[in-house]
């Protein structure tokens, strides 16, 4: 049986291309089917979107040979300060402070703009003979009862041994396979934008826990920050409708004046926050990665990092199966990936959910309790290093790629 590729990957975002590159290291070929046209993916301007790559994800970029291209554009996160706050009052006196000098591995993470990460992934895919990129087309039908077959919009049929859904939290791949989802709406919308400011941020990331929802301020190269700011759906809709000047007027009291005057340096985005877990991550001849398997609340910026961990684990499981001659698309092999990733992602989803519920309210008692709790964590070096290692993606059964090793 000859196939178009060993693996068909639906989804050309970040996890899909990363998986194709990881699989190429194991000798497996893939076709990446991407709904967006290539010029959209490679648009050169800064659109305001960026990612916090945890240290483990940075190591993975290095193992995939991508980091040299990314490093010049990345901003290391040297410190993280988390504090409880209310708009107009500034931060509470107790706060969590994580300093990378306490972690022997170096910076806990790196901020990278969406445009650089995408362009690097596109270039790497183009340079890899084991990868075929099919941009600007959608899957309209699939069959995984035997070797994977997908039908594209133009009626082209592609076949492979395994089908991967890397097509986000509304994964058509999962839906077509009859995999049900579970989850709930947080009643919040994340407002995302990039901010320019007068004073240097010194590589410090901030997370303010405020009654409507958390505000994360993440340092970008230069005097710029990426912010993720959560509000109730209704309030977010009102704020999104404002013009830039009015938008900044709402943001200013939340953001504070510690970085001087602020301005917008890119487009504004809004994302309704929902938890969405697929009830199974695998089926015969099919596997889900990233948000297609588990869309979580982005409170700790762990969405992409969890997705890359899926990619690292799946590529390692498939590569090992291929080396020992197993049918790598068979369920017993895919279940090894599911066992490896399911506990981790469910724990993370429930963990961020609990943190969000605890912090997104204005109950005086809870507010006092969490201030004391944060003070305690901050004052206890071992506990603090534990949090930092978790956030950096260094805990648990870490896939080889995320330890910086090639497959």
């Amino acid at each position, binding site marked *: 049986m000859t196939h178009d590729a060993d693996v068909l990957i639906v989804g050309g975002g970040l996890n899909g291309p990363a998986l194709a590159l990881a699989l190429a290291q194991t000798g497996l070929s893939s076709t990446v089917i991407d709904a967006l046209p290539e010029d959209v993916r490679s648009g050169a301007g800064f659109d305001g979107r960026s990612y916090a790559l945890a240290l483990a994800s940075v190591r993975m970029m290095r193992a995939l040979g991508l980091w040299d291209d990314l490093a010049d554009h990345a901003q290391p996160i040297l410190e993280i300060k988390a504090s409880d706050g209310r708009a107009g009052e500034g931060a509470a006196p107790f706060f969590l402070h994580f300093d990378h000098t306490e972690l022997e591995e170096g910076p806990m993470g790196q901020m990278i703009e969406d445009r650089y990460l995408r362009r690097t992934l596109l270039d790497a895919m183009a340079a890899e003979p084991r990868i075929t990129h099919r941009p600007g087309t959608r899957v309209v039908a699939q069959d995984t009862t035997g070797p994977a077959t997908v039908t594209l919009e133009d009626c082209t049929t592609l076949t492979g041994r395994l089908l991967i859904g890397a097509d986000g939290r509304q994964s058509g791949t999962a839906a077509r396979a009859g995999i049900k989802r579970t989850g709930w709406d947080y009643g919040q919308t994340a407002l995302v934008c990039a901010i320019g400011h007068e004073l240097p941020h010194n590589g410090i990331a901030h997370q303010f826990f405020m009654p409507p929802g958390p505000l994360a301020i993440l340092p970008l190269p230069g005097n710029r920050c990426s912010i993720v700011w959560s509000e109730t759906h209704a309030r977010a809709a009102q704020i999104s409708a404002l013009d830039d000047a009015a938008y900044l007027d709402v943001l200013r009291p939340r953001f504070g004046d510690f970085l001087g005057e602020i301005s917008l340096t890119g487009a504004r985005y809004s994302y309704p926050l929902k938890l969405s877990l697929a009830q199974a991550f695998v089926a015969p001849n099919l596997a889900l990665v990233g948000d297609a398997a588990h869309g979580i609340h982005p409170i700790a910026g762990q969405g992409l990092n969890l997705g890359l961990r899926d990619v690292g684990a799946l590529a390692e499981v498939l590569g090992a199966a291929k080396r020992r001659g197993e049918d790598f698309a*068979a369920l017993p092999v895919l279940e090894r990936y599911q066992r490896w990733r399911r506990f981790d992602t469910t724990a993370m989803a429930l963990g961020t959910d609990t943190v969000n519920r605890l912090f997104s309210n204005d109950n005086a008692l809870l507010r006092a309790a969490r201030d004391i709790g944060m003070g305690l964590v901050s004052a206890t070096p071992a506990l603090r290093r534990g949090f930092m290692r978790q956030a950096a993606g260094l805990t648990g059964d870490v896939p080889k790629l995320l330890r910086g090793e090639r497959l």
Partner: protein
Amino acid sequence: MNTTAASLDTAEVAKFDAMAAEWWDAHGKFAPLHAMNPCRLDYITAQIAAEFGRDRSADRPFDGLRVLDIGCGGGLVAEPMARLGADVTGIDASETTVGVAATHAAGQGLNIDYRQITAEDLAASGAQFDGVLALEIIEHVAQPQAFLTTCAALTRPGGLTILSTLNRTPKSFAAAILGAEWVMRWLPKGTHDWSKFITPEEMEAMMTTAALDPVDRKGMVFAPLSGTWSLSDRDLGINYIVTAVKPA
């Protein structure tokens, strides 16, 4: 006789399909074998690649190597060997099992020579292989020394015999008493004869008597919590696997 999917009638194929589903159900009756299989395959593929100087990153690293799987069952080892490029012969005492294995391999698009024949009869025919695999089989055999002599006869000079079985230790005895399925699974039916287990030292002595040179041995260790197996240099207390070379 030589059983291929083509020589079976429709009713038999239907029956074999159902049984193949059972053999290949990772959560079914053969779950312990499925759990152990990756660990066995890691060892076998590494030993064969090392002995014959094969590049494991190649798509078909074992191209041209003739491999015999004695007691092949549903083909849990024979199929991976064929996928890696080896010319595989799988033999089993059960006509039904051989039919099941042939049916499954055909569905996978793999060409494997499955036969219902004893190792002794195959050896008498003069057949020889680059690699002879006898996995979880010697504990079922009445005369282990004679069986090893047969394995040696089936191995070409310069070829390998790889054998896995259960050790005879207080630990394996305790595991058997406790009814641990990964041990019970291999006890001969109705006898539960722990005393038939062979220690690695006895195995290597018998191999030497059969003119095979033992060159490597590893433990295969089960972790009940994760349900996974791993290779161990030190712990050969329950399951172990040995490689021997037939001098050229």
